[in-house]
């Protein structure tokens, strides 16, 4: 994907970023603006169906995703912020490509042909395309030691196995700005997602294991690109010592030297301010 095609981009924030993870949403928009991209929020987008629709009503899951696809203007990529939403949208799009009957139904329901060439991209893809923005390596992140936490976002079902995935992207990009990435055991461990509500007894040991793994590796913080992972690590970990968790886009905001809004950081349940102050990343 070439940089010049990336100016106008449709944007699907999804329910989490629109509500419980506003700090993720705002920092992501800020980084995109800095890179010269105009994000146009998808007009009247609906929930992608989350984990629940495909779990018990796969028909509804498909239609919910399709309605969003039908709102995307032709000829520009659709940026999706949440790894879980993107999987839902890509699965529906893949089905449309494979199944003419599904396309017919789409047309009947949404009154237009599906755009089978629509590019559905994750924030990672933008970062990959734009690389380091030509910026020279810097020490902006002051040697911050982080455990890159991808959760399940790099694991796609077999039918989507040819889709791009971005192993090592957070490590590469953040190291470019002087952070130190650590090798650890739980980078791709599932966070427990929605079981956090109904079976916290199962999820707490899992997130404790993840947090302890990061601590044992010598990390000062975890970096994630998923709002669900972020929330589960914050609310379900009951260890005495907890590391702060950053959204990838928050650290990029710092790396690019963009003004960091105070009210993002105060949204964190594990306070990142002491660490940021100690590392002289905020005044």
């Amino acid at each position, binding site marked *: 994907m070439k940089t010049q095609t990336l100016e106008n981009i449709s944007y699907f924030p999804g329910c989490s970023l*629109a509500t419980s993870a506003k700090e993720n949403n705002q920092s992501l928009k800020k980084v995109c603006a800095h890179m010269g991209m105009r994000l146009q929020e998808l007009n009247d987008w609906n929930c992608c169906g989350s984990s*629940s629709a495909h*779990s*018990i009503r796969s028909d*509804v899951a498909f239609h*919910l995703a399709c*309605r969003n696809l039908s709102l995307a203007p032709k000829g520009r990529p659709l940026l999706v912020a949440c790894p879980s939403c993107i999987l839902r949208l890509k699965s529906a799009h893949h089905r449309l490509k494979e199944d003419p009957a599904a396309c017919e139904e789409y047309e009947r329901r949404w009154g237009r042909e599906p755009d089978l060439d629509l590019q559905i991209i994750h924030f990672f893809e933008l970062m990959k395309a734009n690389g380091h923005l030509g910026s020279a390596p810097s020490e902006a992140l002051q040697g911050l030691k982080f455990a890159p936490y991808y959760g399940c976002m790099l694991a796609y*079902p077999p039918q989507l196995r040819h889709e791009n995935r971005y192993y090592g992207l957070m490590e590469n990009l953040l190291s470019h700005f002087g952070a130190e990435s650590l090798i650890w055991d739980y980078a791709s461990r599932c966070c427990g997602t929605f079981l956090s509500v109904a079976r916290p007894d*199962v999820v707490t040991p899992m997130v404790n294991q993840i947090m302890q793994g990061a601590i044992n590796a010598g990390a000062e913080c975890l970096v994630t690109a998923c709002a669900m992972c972020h929330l589960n690590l914050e609310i379900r970990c009951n260890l005495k010592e907890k590391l702060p968790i950053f959204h990838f886009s928050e650290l990029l905001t710092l790396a690019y030297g963009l003004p960091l809004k105070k009210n993002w950081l105060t949204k964190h349940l594990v306070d990142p301010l002491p660490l940021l102050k100690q590392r002289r990343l905020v005044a």
Partner: protein
Amino acid sequence: MQASRSTAMILAAGEISLPNRGNDMLEIDTSFCDTVVQRSGEEFRRCLQCMSCAGGCPFSHAMTYRPNGVIRLIQYGFVREVLESPDIWLCVGCNTCSIACPMAIDIPGMMDALREIAIENKVKINESAILSFHQEVLNSIQRYGRTHKLEIMMRYKLRRRDFFTDMDVGLKMMAKRKLDLMPSKIADPKVVAKLFSEAEK
């Protein structure tokens, strides 16, 4: 019942022997496997029982049969064991198993179909709390076109008659303004609500 479950567990664990369920033999449905294959569109009959899925699944320890065991039981036609198992509800669709599977089986896709079959057949749902959660999320989407987390949690708690667990978590999230009081809605929620009633099963 107890005996049949242990037979099922032996089979699920990979020991191939004829099920000894006495009269329970009647409950074996040899067409079940075809039904699930058709419903899920997933050709899991090519499973090798290598157990890579079970090894990687972060919820294996909480399951009764584990993903490979569920496949084996489907193949033997142990309908009740499969549909009443906690396993199909504990699967969160993280795809850890499918990327490890040498036969590229979409295990979470198969689990999706099993949950739907379980609900349609009104079997006893072993993990009813998880089902309640899914239902509340869907209710919210049906009502607003988007999810309203605070209301989902309140209604979930009402449904479970459990008002005290997680009060602290909820309050912390409120204090951090992570739970909006008012729902965010789409312009005309009826458009989305219609999908729920119209969508063919």
